């Protein structure tokens, strides 16, 4: 528990660039042979001429003890799921099993070259092949590409597939429909694929407004990108109708399955009528986020869309597994090689460990956790549950701190900082955009009921404190390594400092 007395560690740890001792902890593997080799083949600088850089690069050199201490100290000033609840909505910060880390670092994975012969990697290929089948089964699709390195890359893949599908049929469809509650990557990906983004408003129930949808559909409609349950945690109960409408208009349905966590093993996007799905292996399938990545954004497709998946796909012939590079209709290649293997392997371990029944139970529990939290929040003043408060949420729930803000001036952002002060990570805030002062909360299946209770209690306390002394709340956080960060200074053109090099050049007056 964080407890009332929680405080985070604080180290005045210099930047690695400021380290004094220009030594080195790295040992050059066969370095003692270099003199002999140089006698045989000569020195690089004698051959490189004008290419040669002369002096060595300006990089700090740390001994091993310095390196390990540096990062140990930085780690003590960091906070992940291993430290406590991180109920960032839309992010599915579930526990990352240690056994997955252990197995993904097995030398029989870690030491494989991507271009070594297929007959020497049959074990890994079998894993990838099986994983693809499993993910297809879970989503209700036909085939998947493991290539996209993250959800957004999966979206781009899907959007490009939709684009090419229509082009191949000689149709010029350049509009992509995206609900106003959608994740920012949806419109961004659609735009990258060359689409004009048409925003579809939500109705008063927080789901897609069918009237608006009908109005938006046309012969320019390439498709729609949907998340279901949506970012409010609400299941789009009119999904079958939506699918019918879009398909009837000649459009395709793209499922943003970044977060399948409320429905995996219970409902399948394929059955809802979606043509393409991407999955965030680093959310639903418990591969860690790593402070921002790596992830894996598997894309699955159904029917005619399968041909458009990026290549290579993994195939099996008898006992042999291989990469199939044939590409008649495919959009090409979304990244070099095959995908982010380590996270994919972790997904394999996760699914193998839980099996269908376990995945389903995990999804059910994620939903129970969300609704348990909602039950605990009943009667807590200052926060309101917009859109159909009686309807059960699935993987997440979005509260609005508008009442609190109105009453005390304390914003969702302030609430977030006050949570930090209690050793609890803040929820996602100010998203989705359709909710004012949004607090988007997702506990996932792996959070304990005890922590969910503590979280509701903390929100109650903060609201009380806000009513008592709002300025106190606005001074939060105090118990984190640093106090509230100066965002204006950080972003101001005269002070913005994206690297130590900029800092140093500016100090010398060398920066325009």
């Amino acid at each position, binding site marked *: 528990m964080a407890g009332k007395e929680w405080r985070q560690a604080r180290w005045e740890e210099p930047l690695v660039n400021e380290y004094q001792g220009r030594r080195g902890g790295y040992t050059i*593997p066969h370095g003692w042979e270099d003199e002999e080799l140089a006698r045989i083949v000569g020195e690089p600088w004698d051959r490189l001429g004008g290419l040669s850089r002369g002096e060595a690069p300006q990089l700090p050199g740390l001994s091993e003890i310095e390196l390990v201490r540096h990062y140990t100290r930085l780690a003590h000033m*960091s906070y992940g799921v291993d430290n406590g609840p991180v109920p960032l909505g839309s992010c599915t910060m579930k526990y990352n099993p240690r056994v997955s880390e252990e197995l993904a670092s097995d030398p029989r*994975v870690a030491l494989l070259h991507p271009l*070594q012969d297929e007959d020497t990697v049959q074990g890994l290929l079998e894993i990838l092949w099986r994983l693809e089948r499993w993910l297809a089964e879970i989503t209700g699709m036909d085939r998947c590409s493991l290539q996209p390195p993250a959800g957004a890359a999966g979206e781009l893949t899907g959007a490009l597939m939709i684009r090419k599908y229509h082009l191949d049929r000689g149709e010029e469809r350049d509009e992509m429909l995206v609900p106003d509650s959608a994740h920012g990557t949806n419109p961004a990906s659609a735009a990258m694929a060359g689409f004009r983004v048409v925003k579809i408003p939500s109705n008063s129930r927080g789901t897609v407004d069918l009237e608006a949808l009908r109005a938006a559909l046309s012969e320019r409609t390439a498709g729609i990108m949907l998340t279901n349950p949506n970012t409010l945690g609400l299941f789009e109960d009119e999904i079958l109708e939506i699918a019918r409408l879009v398909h009837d208009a000649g459009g395709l349905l793209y499922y943003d399955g970044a977060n399948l966590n409320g429905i995996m093993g219970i409902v399948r996007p394929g059955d809802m009528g979606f043509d393409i799905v991407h999955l965030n292996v680093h959310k639903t399938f418990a591969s860690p986020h790593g402070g921002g990545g790596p992830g894996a954004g598997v894309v699955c497709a159904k029917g005619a869309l399968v041909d458009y998946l990026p290549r290579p796909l993994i195939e099996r012939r008898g006992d042999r597994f291989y990469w199939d590079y044939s590409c008649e209709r495919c959009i090409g290649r979304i990244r070099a090689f095959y995908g982010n293997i380590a996270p994919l392997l972790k997904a394999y371990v996760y699914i193998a460990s839980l099996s269908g029944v376990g995945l389903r139970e995990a999804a059910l529990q994620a939903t129970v956790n969300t609704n348990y939290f909602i039950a605990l929040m009943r009667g807590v003043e200052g926060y309101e549950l917009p859109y159909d408060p009686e309807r059960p949420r699935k993987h997440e729930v979005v509260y609005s701190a508008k009442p609190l803000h109105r009453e005390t001036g304390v914003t969702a952002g302030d609430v977030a900082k006050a949570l930090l002060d209690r050793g609890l990570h803040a929820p996602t805030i100010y998203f989705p955009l359709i909710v004012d002062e949004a607090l988007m909360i997702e506990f996932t299946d792996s959070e304990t009921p005890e922590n969910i209770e503590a979280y509701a209690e903390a929100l109650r306390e903060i609201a009380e404190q806000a009513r008592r002394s709002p300025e106190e709340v606005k001074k939060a956080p105090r118990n984190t390594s640093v106090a509230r960060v100066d965002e204006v200074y950080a972003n101001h053109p005269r002070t913005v*400092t994206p*690297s130590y090099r900029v800092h140093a050049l500016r100090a010398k007056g060398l920066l325009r």
Partner: protein
Amino acid sequence: MEPWGYLSRWVPGVTRRKEMLERIGVSDVMELYSDVPRELILPEPPRVGYGRPLSEEEVRRVLDEVLSRNTVYRAPPPFTGGGWCPHHVPAAVRYIVERGEFLTAYTPYQAEINQGLLQALFEYQSLIADLTELEVVNASMYDGSTATAEAALMAMRVTRRRKVVVSGGLHPEYLEVLRTWLQGKGAEIRVADIDVESGVTSTEALSSLVDGNTAAVIVSSPNFYGVFEDVEAAADTAHKHGALLVQVFEPLSLGLVKPPGRLGADIAVAEGQPLGLGLNYGGPGLGVFAVRWDRRLLRQLPGRLIGMTRDAEGRRAFTMILQAREQHIRREKATSNITTNEALMAIAAAAYLSFLGGEGLRELARSIWLRSHYAARRLSEEGVEAPIFSGEFFKEFTARFPAPYRRVHEELKRRGIMGGLALERYGMDPRLALFCVTELHSKRDIDSLASAVAEALKITERGG
């Protein structure tokens, strides 16, 4: 009922589900799905995994069994090139990125509670900035190939032009990725052939393609064939026409050669895999992305950026900056759709570079240079044309065998050696192979490659 712990290990709430449902006010968990059309609810759980939950130990055994069907090349490591080579991964670097605080953190949206993570990423940006001598570095793209595509897209935004001229020395898979990513933007991609003698982009070909519609000139140095290009000349050509010069570089080579920032590159991208990430069958990688200090460029930079600032009490602090470029704020007008990136790999790379130091990097690059040159020489002695290009090379080099390389390759494999990359794969002359020789290859490894090649050549000559 599952055996003890099978569900509660990762789903602790199951042990209190009944009580929680009571509090919620439903009697059955499926009531929480009452808004889902009935016909959509699966009658039974999907058939995935092994038919029932597995214990941790069973999973270990399953994986152990299947992974035993892989062949690991450790002594010697693979000689296979292709923009992804075996390199030393220091144990300390591995330890650092396995720590739960970094591993299990999300993007540091709440700066105050994640100063360590933010500092680590800021240091990554700073180290790459010092390495490339370009001032602004984002907190990572997916890999070298997608970073290249993003660089092209960025150049198109900056210049508001649509033509991208690419050196034929670019990695063929990068070129494929570029074509895919630029599909939606109606880009015109033109490839400037390389000179078959020197192995570098033909200057004529390049200048003939670059014009006033060109957004970017993309040159890889060293290129796919391991050969250093004349980046300065390419930059001149590009700049003359108002285009940006994008250099794809190899990070370790900067221990020996001039950094992109000194060659006139506006954007430099790289695959960061050599910086302590390991092989991992090709992923995760690390898309290094650096640009010159120029507000016009900064505004169009894709990806996340960490900045140095101060806290309310004046202490140094770090936070995500210039977020208005990003998708969660700017949505369809964002500079990229990227959000999840390769942050943990960026931390690994930063730890790696800090561990190595500048002098160490120079020594390491020299060692790689020496070994790859020694290998080329040894192969030449055995009757292989290596390298086939006259341009200076680093780490990778292209060899031409007297007969199709695949048969030699099979012989090498029989001797426990994973040889070069048969360039037939990319539709080239079947006699060509791309070798990668790094600090991991001892002199003895190289000698054993050479003698195995000699034997293989004898056998294949006999056989053919």
